[in-house]
């Protein structure tokens, strides 16, 4: 009995540990900026988030049309002038509109694009956990004999003897 209790506690503890590690990994992954980047890395990363205004679904990093080349050069200059990534992105938003940025905005209504998948995954996980729990309760109830079962067995034994 004590061993069964210990096993149950350990099982719960392991789930809690997994949950803590998972949440911690998400927080670290989301908060980490990967350390200091070179100017070239910053330029490439920024260029990959700016849509080429003249192209179909391409970033300025991928396209080689004139405006994409001009914007890549401009990003390089702005980085060397000490502008932050947000400041540089804002320049293009001011000049070409919000659709120039390929990443959806993380705030406002568009922020749901980021939130909905996480909520959906959480709900799906909870649903699976509930289903497993229900199946287990049903299985446990099948393993335990009821009073009716015992009476039936006793009756069969009496008949046979």
């Amino acid at each position: 009995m004590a061993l069964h209790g210990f096993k149950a506690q350990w099982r719960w503890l392991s789930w809690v540990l997994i949950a803590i590690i998972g949440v911690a990994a998400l927080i670290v992954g989301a908060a980490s900026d990967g350390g200091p980047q070179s100017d070239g890395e910053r330029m490439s990363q920024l260029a990959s988030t700016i849509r080429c205004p003249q192209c179909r679904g391409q970033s300025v990093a991928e396209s080689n049309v004139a405006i994409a080349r001009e914007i890549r050069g401009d990003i390089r200059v702005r980085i060397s002038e000490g502008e932050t990534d947000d400041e540089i992105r804002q320049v293009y938003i001011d000049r070409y509109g919000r659709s120039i940025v390929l990443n959806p905005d993380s705030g406002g209504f568009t922020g749901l694009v980021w939130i909905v998948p996480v909520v959906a995954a959480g709900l799906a996980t909870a649903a699976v956990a509930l289903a497993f729990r229900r199946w287990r309760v049903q299985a446990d109830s099948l393993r335990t004999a009821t009073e009716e079962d015992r009476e039936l067995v006793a009756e069969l034994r009496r008949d046979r003897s």
Partner: protein
Amino acid sequence: MKNRSAIAAGLVAVVIAVLIVLLAASDTQQTGSVSYEILGEVAPQITGPTIDGDQYSLLDERGDWVVVNFFASWCVGCRVEHPELVEFTERHEDDGVQLVAVMFGDTETDAREFFNELGGDWPALVEETGRIAIDYGVTAVPETLLISPSGRVVYKWIGTRGVTADNIDALIAQLEGGG
């Protein structure tokens, strides 16, 4: 049991509905989009050397109507509209209407050759960083903008369509008349 299934189905339906709304509301304009964000704004500074070796500053033109034309020697549309710009400058040699060209994605040598070949004696800025074009939200050449005497961008032509001496004059006359 039936209630739980109904709740689960309802949740799935809500999630799908939210995703559909998000997709429907998202900006699907992914190609060839034209930016008019600059209209009504104070004209960004245009300053620098010209292909003739002079220095140009838009600030010196304050009080005049200024037509800003972004061009490149490799641009077919720029060659098509160029005679109209020549005609426009011949009409406005001394009347407070200016034209300035800004090189886009080109070399100084090719730009100079372009003017030698097609004519035109208005200032043409050597712009190798693309900063001025980006400040004006240029997507591709040719693009032409009209700046009011108060220094605001009041009109933008995309491509060659509508870029004729008559059209530009008519627009200026309309705006001067308050219409």
